[in-house]
């Protein structure tokens, strides 16, 4: 990450891409929580490796970001070490490009003893580019 990239993220952004695929595809960041704690905010800055051949963010990377952000939020909402994605539906609404700061707002719709229902809106400067809905199994 170069300096100009670092400066565009809030100082308290936490890098959550420590290992494996998350690290290979990232880095992805968790932003400070809002007062409403049933959810979370996440961000990444678009790098050359994140693109498709016409210079837009690759759909696979956007689904990866959604899954990373929503899985992390499910674990936090459930207070457990591990949650597994059971289903995920993603609509690609609009494009994003190199250097964009992409932010996901994740909301927990409902948490039961065994499941977490969530939605996420992914945007660049308030312009929504992707929406996701999914179901996570706790543990």
């Amino acid at each position: 990450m170069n300096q100009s990239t670092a400066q565009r993220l809030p100082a308290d952004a936490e890098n959550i891409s420590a290992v494996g695929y998350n690290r290979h595809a990232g880095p992805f960041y968790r932003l400070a929580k809002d007062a409403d704690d049933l959810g979370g905010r996440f961000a990444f800055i678009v790098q050359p490796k994140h693109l498709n051949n016409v210079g837009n963010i690759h759909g696979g990377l956007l689904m990866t970001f959604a899954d990373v952000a929503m899985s992390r939020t499910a674990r936090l909402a459930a207070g457990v070490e591990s949650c597994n994605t059971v289903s995920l539906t993603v609509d690609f609404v609009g494009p994003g490009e190199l250097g964009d700061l992409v932010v996901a707002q994740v909301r927990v719709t409902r948490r039961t003893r065994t499941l977490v229902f969530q939605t996420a809106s992914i945007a660049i400067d308030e312009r929504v580019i992707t929406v996701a809905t999914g179901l996570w199994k706790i543990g």
Partner: protein
Amino acid sequence: MAMNMPEGYLETRLIDPFEIHVGPVYEKGGKGAKRYALRVDDRHVNRRGVVHGGMCLTFADAALGQAAWDATDHAPSVTLNMQAQFLRGAVLGDLIQVKPELVRQTRALLFIRGDFTVQGETVFLVQSLWKLLGES
């Protein structure tokens, strides 16, 4: 990577930087009956050694996108929607395979699904919708 190449498969020519970054992907078979494969390596898994959902979805986008490309004799298209259900985990070293199925093609849209399997067992299911560029 030759030693990791599954039998009968040839490496797919990927052009998207993100797919090249997470690939390679392999393919075999003729038009309309192609299979695609991904060998799970240490770049694809989480800390428990299980393939990441995001990697599954990226492989799905690549494989079903290749199917869209084949079905249209190489017309460019973009992913509009993808729905996935994750039935079980795949782990390091597994070979994930899919034979994409073109469910319907209209003037502007392609409906494509795929069952992604490891040794014959379904690991995840995907339904997808693609928009042909230049068609309103």
